[in-house]
């Protein structure tokens, strides 16, 4: 049986958990530490926490808050938001973060990936790419929480990131974010067939049934936001995670 990592992605704004739809309208969910404590009990595979306003506000990662969250995270913990240099990465490692999520810095400073991968290993560097379709249906990468377009064509961009030494790609569909429409399977297929490193698919998950098609289209791991913080598309707040036996029967044993 092959296990696939199923990863909640939590977005942070001013130390509070929020959830967006198509990267807009952040809605308050709760306290990140409480959420992480609940995710511990649910035995989640891994957790990604993204500070979605750090880069916009041109500030550093909020180390105090991150340390507090990390001290409660007994699962692999990836952090992203506002990371621009190697000293920050080193500092974050010392706080107990295993993986660094780089996004907005990639276009202008791919060398940071190289440098960080050399020191800390590729396995600890996750490149996060936010993707949106343009009016012609063509996929385009974005940075700074989806606000700024990246000039390179998507495939060229991700190949550069792979060459620089990133360990994985977190591919987030802006169009599907918070929509419960299922993953963008074409996007997953396109990206995973262009690079050799593992793809973490994110954006659009509605339920456990969304996972299998994404994996079959090339995702090596699965991430989701709304589905793990809401009870369903009615969006009642409830931190949740599939039961292990359901993941085994509905996902792992189907692979």
């Amino acid at each position: 049986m092959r296990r696939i990592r199923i990863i909640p992605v939590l977005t942070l704004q001013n130390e509070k958990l929020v959830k967006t739809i198509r990267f807009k309208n952040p809605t308050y969910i709760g306290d990140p530490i409480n959420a992480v404590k609940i995710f511990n009990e649910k035995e989640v595979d891994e957790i990604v926490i993204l500070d979605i306003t750090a880069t916009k506000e041109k500030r550093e990662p909020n180390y105090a808050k991150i340390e507090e969250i990390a001290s409660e995270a007994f699962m692999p913990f990836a952090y992203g938001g506002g990371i621009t240099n190697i000293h920050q990465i080193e500092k974050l490692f010392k706080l107990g973060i295993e993986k660094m999520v780089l996004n907005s810095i990639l276009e202008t400073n791919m060398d940071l990936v190289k440098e960080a991968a050399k020191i800390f290993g590729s396995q600890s560097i996750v490149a996060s790419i936010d993707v949106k379709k343009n009016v012609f249906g063509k996929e385009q990468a974005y940075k700074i929480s989806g606000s700024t377009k990246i000039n390179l064509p998507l495939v060229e961009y991700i190949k550069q990131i792979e060459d620089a030494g990133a360990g994985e790609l977190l591919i987030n569909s802006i169009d599907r974010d918070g929509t419960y429409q299922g993953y963008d399977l074409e996007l997953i297929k396109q990206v995973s067939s262009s690079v050799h490193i593992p793809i973490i698919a994110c954006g659009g998950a509605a339920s456990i049934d969304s996972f299998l098609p994404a994996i079959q289209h090339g995702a090596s791991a699965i991430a989701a936001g709304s589905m793990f913080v809401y009870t369903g598309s009615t969006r009642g707040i409830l931190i949740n995670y599939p039961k292990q036996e359901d993941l085994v029967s509905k996902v792992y044993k189907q692979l």
Partner: protein
Amino acid sequence: MITIINYNAGNIKSIQNMLKRIGAKSCISGDAKEIEQAEKLILPGVGHFDYGMRNLQESSLIDVLNKKVLLDKTTLLGICLGAQLLGNRSEEGVEAGLGWIDMDVVKFDENKLPKNLKIPHMSWNEIMIKKQSNLLEGLTNESRFYFVHSYRLKCNNENDILATTNSGYEFTSAVEKENIFGVQFHPEKSHKYGMRLLENFVNV
């Protein structure tokens, strides 16, 4: 008191966080004199084999560790790279390992893996327990742990194998020889399973 060895090659804080959670006292030290006094030792580690060995050499810790582990028989747990360093050598580099357990560290054979399994092996996985051990008390073959590694342990003496794991093919995921334990996975990031393992280590 458990001393977590600081040689600038490991995610020390996560280990300390979990020890704190289970109520075990720990300290972090890269100082030979302090390590000399340790009741129990954890050798963490993330990264390249040679980088790990060179850091141990540069921190002048190898003599004191040899004394503690081989003469004083202090209980030691190696985690991830820390487990690999217990062996003779690694295909990853050229440096000699600590040589406390007769094993080599070899790369995963990609030709033997199914196409959809990538290296590094970064995944949760079960263990298959091969011998009875205090370290695995209360854990079963259903217990899951988090792995992230590209190289694996290969014991020359089957008696040293404590557990194996299957990821494409079966490999050694935990070793035990007298007072020395090594785990390829990360107990500090493996929820209640890792907590139990570290509790067992505290109580050994």
